[in-house]
C-alpha cells in the first residue's frame, strides 16, 4: 500500500482546483457536515427543481480527502434527477464502507478515485462527510415537499 493509493492524482486535482466551491445566490437547502474530532467541515448549498439537483455548491475547510470528495460529489450530482442521486449515494457508500465494489459508479471515474481511502479507516469518514451533508439536505427538502403537499391536499 503506498501513499499514492490514498492521494491519487484525481484527488489532489480536486483538492487543489475545487469544482463548485463557493456560494449559490438562492439555495433551497443548506446543510453543514462537521466532524468535531478532526475539524473537517463541509457546507452544502443545493438548488432543486423538478425532482433534480439544479445547482450545488460547497464551502468549508478540512483535509484533502473531505474537500476533494465534496468537489467530486458536487460534479457528479449536479443536474442529476434525485432518483439517480439516491442511487449514486448508495453506490458510493457501497464502495467506501460496503463491499468496496465500484460497479454502481460507472461513468463517475473521479468518485472511483476515492476507493483507496477505504484502506485508511480513519479517513473514510472524511470521504463520506459531504455525502452525509447531501443526504441531510435531500431529507430536509423532501420533508418540506411532503408537508407542502399535505397542506395543499387538506
Amino acid at each position, binding site marked *: 500500500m503506498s501513499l499514492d493509493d490514498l492521494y491519487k492524482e484525481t484527488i489532489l486535482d480536486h483538492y487543489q482546483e475545487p469544482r463548485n466551491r463557493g456560494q449559490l445566490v438562492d439555495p433551497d437547502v443548506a446543510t453543514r457536515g462537521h466532524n468535531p474530532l478532526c475539524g473537517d467541515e463541509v457546507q452544502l448549498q443545493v438548488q432543486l427543481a423538478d425532482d433534480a439537483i439544479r445547482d450545488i455548491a460547497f464551502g468549508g475547510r478540512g*483535509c484533502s480527502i473531505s474537500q476533494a470528495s465534496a468537489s467530486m460529489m458536487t460534479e457528479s450530482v449536479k443536474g442529476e434527477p434525485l432518483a439517480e442521486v439516491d442511487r449514486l449515494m448508495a453506490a458510493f457508500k457501497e464502495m467506501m464502507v460496503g463491499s468496496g465494489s465500484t460497479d454502481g459508479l460507472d461513468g463517475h471515474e473521479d468518485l472511483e478515485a476515492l476507493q483507496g481511502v477505504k484502506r485508511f479507516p480513519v479517513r473514510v469518514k472524511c470521504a463520506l462527510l459531504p455525502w452525509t451533508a447531501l443526504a441531510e439536505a435531500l431529507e430536509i427538502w423532501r420533508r418540506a415537499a411532503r408537508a407542502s403537499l399535505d397542506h395543499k391536499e387538506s
Partner: protein
Amino acid sequence: MSENLTPQPPSLKGREGSTFPLPFREGGQGDRSIPLDVEAIRRDFPILERQVHGKPLVYLDNAATSQKPHQVIQALVDYYQGYNANIHRGVHALAEEATEAYEGVRRKTARFIGADGPQEVLFTRNTTEAINLIAYTWARDTVAEGDEIVITTMEHHSNIVPWQWVAQQRGARLKYAEFGPDGTLDLDQVARLITPRTKLVSMVHMSNVLGTINPVAEVARLAHAQGALMLVDGAQSVPHLPVDVGAIECDFLAFSAHKMMGPTGVGVLWGRRALLEGMRPFLGGGEMIEQVGRDSSTYNVLPWKYEAGTPNIADVVAFGAALDYLATLGMERVRAHEIELVDYALEQVGSIPGVQIYGPPQAERRGGVVSFGLDDIHPHDIGQVVDYQGVAIRAGHHCCQVLMKALGISGTARASFYVYNTPREVDVLVRALIGAKEMFSGKANGSVAR
C-alpha cells in the same frame, strides 16, 4: 525498610551490553554540561531499529507515549518468568518478592519526585485516573456551592472534564486563566482569578500542545495565599524535566509511566500525606480495607487505602526500570538535550515558508514539543504524508479542544522529542514537511470566487 534488603529481581541486575549499569544509582540530576550519549541510548530502544514504509522510523510522538528501553521490556519478562504473584497477603516466596519489587518502585517514585515518603505515592492507571481520583474524593467533599475551581485554557481534557462535573454537581464555578499570543500565562491574571472562594487551582505543568512550561511554583503560592489547593498535571513535565514536589510546593501531582519509558497502565498520584489521610477512599474493595463488617468497614492506611483490587503489579515493577534509566541519565541532562533539539526544530521547521509554530518562541520556556500548522494543509494530511517518510508525528486537537478554540484552529501537527531523538531526525521531518507542502499546494480551503 532499608533499600539494601530489596531482593534484586533479574531486571535490576543489569544486562550485558546495557549502556547504563543498574541498579538505581542515588544521586543528583546529572551534570548538565555533559551531553547525553544519544547513539548509545538509541541502542537501548529496540523499536528504533524498525522501518516504517521502507524508511527508518523517526519517532516524534513522544508526548503521546514514549518508547521503551530493553531494560523495561526485560523487567516485564523477568517479573512474569521469575516472580509473578499477587502482592501483600501472600506468605510464600514469590508473593514476598513481588510485593517487595512493587513497593520498591513506590519508594523509587517517591525519591524521583522528591516526595516525603512512599506513603504519598499512589499508583493509578494513568494521569487521567489520578486527576479523577481527586475530583471524586477530595473535591466532591470539599467544593461547595459558590466555590471556584481555577484551571487554564491550555489544559488537556483530563484536567477539564472532571472539574466540569464537580462544578455542575456542587454548584461551583469553573474559571479559566487564558494564555497570551506567545502561549504563556499572565501571572497577574492568574492572581486575579484566584479568590477566597477558590478551592482548587489545577494546572498543567507543561502544555502537550504549546510546550509552555507554566510557573507552577508561583501559582501554588498564589493558590495557598487564598487558602486553595494546587494540583499539578505533570504528565508532560515529569518525564522531561527535573520535578520536585517540595520545590513546587503543590498539593497534588499527577503523571503517567508510559510517557517516561515505562509501560502503559500505570499512573501516579502524589499527594501531601495529611490531605491523603483526610480524604475518603476512591474505589472500594480488596486491599483498601482494614476491617469489613456487614454494614460498614474501616480502611487501610496510606497508600493502600487508595489502591483497591489487584494493582498493575507487572507494569509498576517495570516502571521501576524506567525510573532507574532516567535517574541514571539525570533529568537535568534530559532537559538540556531537549532544549537543544527544540531550539534546532524551532529554527528548522520555522524556516519552512508557510509554517506557523504555536507556543513560546524560546526553547528554554518550553518542553520538547513543537506544534505547528503548514499553509492551509489539514494536520491529518501532514501526518499521513510524513508517515510515509517513516516520521511519526501527531495531528489533531491533542485532547485540547478548549485550547484549539482559543487559537482559532481545529488542530495542529505536533512533533515531540525525547532522549533518543537527534537533530538529523529533525532534518528528516523538515524534508518530509516540504514534500507535504509541494503535494498539497493549491487553492483548497481558500476563498475561491465562483
